[in-house]
C-alpha cells in the first residue's frame, strides 16, 4: 500500500539529492590519484569531518526505521543502544586503541591482525569481514526496496537498481572521500529532515513529560526495572545489557568494525584520529531525541483511538518499522515530505556506500594484495579498488534478490554480525593489551569464537538448545538472546585464545613494539598537549553527559 504521497516539489527535492551526490563524486574524482586517496581519503580529514562520518556510517535508514520500531516494541530500553551500547566503547577506542591503530599506519583492521599476529589471521578476518559487508550491503538494498515499495509504492527493481548504480558511480569515482562527503551530507539531511517528527509529536501530545506519563511504566525506564526481566519491555536483566550489549556487542562493533573505524583512519593526524569517536559520541547521545522519542510518540498516539494512528499490519503481525514513515505521513506537508524521504534515501545510500568502501579496502589490501598480487603498484591498487566497488555492488544486488526470494535470510544477519565482531573484539583486546598472546592462539581462538556464535544461533533457532540456558532467565526476547549469544561467543574466543597461547610460540618482543601497550612508548599514547586540546578532556565531558543521561532516565 502507498501511505506517503509525493507532490512535484517532493520529487524535485529527491532528484536534487541524486544529482548532488553524483556531482560530489565527479568533483572529487580529480583529487583521487593514488590508492591512499581512494581507500583512506588521503588521510587529510579534520576530527569534525572524520567524526561525523564515523557516526553517519552507522546511521543508516535501517537503523532509523528499526530503532524507532524497536522503541515501539521494547520501550526506552532501546536507548541503551545509543548510550551504554555505544559511548563507553567509542571513548575506549579513542583513548586506548586508536594510538595502536593509527600509529602503526595500517590501512585496515585485518592489517593490524597481520602485524600483531600473522597473515593467516588477517586473511581469515579479511574474508569474514568482506562476506559480512557484502551481505549487509545486499540486505540494506533489499530493505530499502521493501520500504520504498511499502510506503511510497515505488517499483522494487527500479528503486534498487537506481540507488545501487548511484552509489557504485560515486564510490568508484572517488572512493572513501566521496563516501565520507555523502555521509556528512546525509547527517545534516537526517537532522533537518527528521527532527521535526519529534517536535510535531511533542506539540500534538502536549509535552515530553506527558509522553512519558502515557507510555506503560515498563517502557519508560532505563535501568530501574532491569533486576527482574519480566518487568521491562525487552525481557532482559541488567547483566544481559551490560555484558552482551554494553561490553561485547558495543565494543566489538565500535572498536573493531572497519566500516566505522576506517573513518578515523582518514584523519589527518593522531589527535584528529583520537578525537574522531569522541566528536561522534556527542551526536550519538543526541540521536534518541529522534528515534526513541519518536517511538514513544507512536506508542502514545496508537493508544489514543481519537488520533487515528495505527501501525501497519502484515498477516496479523504489527510492522514496527512503519512507525517512523507513519509519523512522517501524519505530520509532514509537501516539501517536507520530500526532505524526510530524501533523509531516509540518503541514509540507505550512505549506509551502502559505507559498506562498499570498507569492502573494497579490505578486499584490495587484505585479500588481493596479501594473497593474489603482492607486488601490485599504487595505481594498480587504485584500479582494483574501483573494480571491487562495481563488483561489490553487483554482488549486493544479487544478495538483495536472494533475500527477496528467501526472507528468512534477514534472521541470519544478526548471527553473521555477532559471528564476526563479537569474537574479534576478544582477539583485538588480548592482542593490544597482552604481549604473550600468540599468532596461533589468536587464529584458533577467533575460529572457535566465530564457530560457537554461529552454532549458538542455529541451536536456538532450531531448538537444539533451550534459550533459557543462553539467557540465564525464564523470560527473554529475541534481543535478549542476541545480547547473551554475543557474550558467550566473546567469552569462548577470549578463553580459547589464552589457553592456546599458553602452549604455542610467541612473537619476539622486538616485532611487537608499538602494537602492544606495554611495548609502546608512553609519548605515543599521551601526546604532550594543553588540557583543552587533549582528547582525554573531551572524552571526560562526553562520559559525564553519558552518566547524567543514564541517571536522569534511570
Amino acid at each position, binding site marked *: 500500500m502507498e501511505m506517503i*504521497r509525493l*507532490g512535484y*516539489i*517532493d520529487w*524535485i*527535492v529527491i532528484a*536534487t*539529492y541524486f544529482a*548532488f551526490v553524483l556531482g*560530489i563524486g565527479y*568533483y*572529487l574524482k580529480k*583529487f583521487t590519484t593514488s590508492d591512499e*586517496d581512494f581507500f583512506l581519503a*588521503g*588521510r*587529510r580529514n579534520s576530527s569534525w*569531518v572524520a567524526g561525523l562520518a564515523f557516526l553517519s556510517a552507522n546511521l543508516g535508514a535501517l537503523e532509523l526505521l528499526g530503532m524507532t520500531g524497536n522503541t515501539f516494541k521494547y520501550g526506552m530500553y532501546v536507548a541503551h543502544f545509543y548510550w551504554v551500547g555505544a559511548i563507553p566503547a567509542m571513548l575506549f577506542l579513542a583513548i586506548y586503541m586508536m594510538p595502536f591503530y593509527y600509529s602503526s599506519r595500517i590501512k585496515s583492521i585485518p592489517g593490524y591482525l597481520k602485524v600483531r599476529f600473522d597473515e593467516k589471521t588477517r586473511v581469515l578476518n579479511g574474508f569474514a569481514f568482506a562476506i559480512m559487508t557484502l551481505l549487509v550491503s545486499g540486505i540494506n538494498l533489499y530493505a530499502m526496496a521493501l520500504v520504498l515499495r511499502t510506503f511510497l509504492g515505488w517499483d522494487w527493481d527500479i528503486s534498487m537498481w537506481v540507488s545501487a548504480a548511484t552509489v557504485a558511480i560515486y564510490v568508484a569515482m572517488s572512493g572513501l572521500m566521496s563516501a*565520507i*562527503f555523502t555521509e*556528512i*551530507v546525509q547527517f*545534516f*539531511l537526517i537532522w*533537518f529532515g527528521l527532527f*521535526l517528527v519529534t517536535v*510535531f509529536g511533542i*506539540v*500534538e501530545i502536549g509535552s515530553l513529560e506527558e509522553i512519558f506519563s502515557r507510555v506503560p511504566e515498563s517502557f519508560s525506564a532505563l535501568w530501574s526495572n532491569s533486576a527482574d526481566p519480566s518487568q521491562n519491555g525487552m525481557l532482559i536483566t541488567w547483566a544481559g545489557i551490560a555484558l552482551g550489549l554494553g561490553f561485547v556487542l558495543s565494543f566489538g562493533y565500535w572498536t573493531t568494525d572497519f566500516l566505522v573505524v576506517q573513518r578515523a583512519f582518514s584523519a*589527518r*593526524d593522531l589527535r584528529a584520529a583520537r578525537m574522531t569517536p569522541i566528536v561522534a559520541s556527542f551526536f550519538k547521545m543526541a540521536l534518541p531525541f529522534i528515534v526513541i522519542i519518536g517511538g514513544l510518540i507512536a506508542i502514545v498516539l496508537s493508544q489514543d483511538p481519537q488520533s487515528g494512528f495505527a501501525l501497519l499490519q502484515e498477516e496479523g503481525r504489527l510492522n514496527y518499522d512503519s512507525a517512523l514513515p507513519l509519523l512522517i*505521513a*501524519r*505530520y*509532514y*506537508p*509537501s*516539501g*517536507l515530505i*520530500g*526532505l524526510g524521504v*530524501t533523509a531516509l534515501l540518503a541514509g540507505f545510500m550512505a549506509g551502502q556506500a559505507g559498506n562498499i568502501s570498507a569492502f573494497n579496502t579490505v578486499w584490495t589490501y587484505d585479500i588481493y594484495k596479501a594473497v593474489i598480487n603482492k607486488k601490485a603498484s599504487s595505481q594498480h591498487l587504485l584500479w582494483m579498488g574501483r573494480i571491487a566497488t562495481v563488483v561489490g555492488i553487483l554482488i549486493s544486488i544479487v544478495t538483495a534478490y536472494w533475500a527477496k526470494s528467501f526472507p528468512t535470510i534477514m534472521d541470519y544477519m544478526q548471527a553473521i554480525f555477532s559471528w564476526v565482531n563479537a569474537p574479534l573484539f576478544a582477539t583485538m583486546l588480548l592482542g593490544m593489551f597482552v604481549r604473550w598472546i600468540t599468532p596461533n592462539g589468536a587464529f584458533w581462538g577467533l575460529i572457535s569464537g566465530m564457530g560457537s556464535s554461529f552454532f549458538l544461533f542455529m541451536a536456538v533457532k532450531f531448538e537444539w538448545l533451550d534459550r533459557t540456558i543462553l539467557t540465564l532467565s525464564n523470560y527473554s526476547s529475541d534481543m535478549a538472546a542476541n545480547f547473551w549469544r554475543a557474550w558467550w561467543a566473546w567469552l569462548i574466543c577470549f578463553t580459547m585464545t589464552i589457553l592456546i597461547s599458553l602452549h604455542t610460540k610467541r612473537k619476539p618482543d622486538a616485532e611487537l613494539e608499538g602494537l602492544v601497550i606495554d611495548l609502546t612508548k608512553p609519548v605515543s599514547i599521551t601526546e604532550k598537549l594543553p588540557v583543552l586540546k587533549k582528547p582525554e578532556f573531551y572524552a571526560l565531558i562526553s562520559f559525564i553527559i553519558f552518566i547524567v543521561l543514564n541517571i536522569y532516565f534511570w
Partner: protein
Amino acid sequence: MVKETKGMKTIWYFVGFILLIMGVLVAAAGFIDYVTPPQDQPVLAHLHTSIWWGLIMIFAGLIFLYVSKGTTVE
C-alpha cells in the same frame, strides 16, 4: 602526512550548498501550500512549518557557505 591538494573545496561548502537548495525548495512548497491550501492537510498544518523550516535551512546553508568561503582542503 598532510597532503597538499590545491583547490579542493571543504565538505562544509557542499553541506551549505545542499541545505540552501533544499531550504529554498521546502520554503517554496510551504508558500504554495499557504496560497493554495491542499485538500488533504497533515496534522498541525496550521503551523505552516515548511515556510519557517525552509527559511531556517536557507539560513543554515548560507552560514556554512560563508564559513567555507575561499577555504580549501590542504
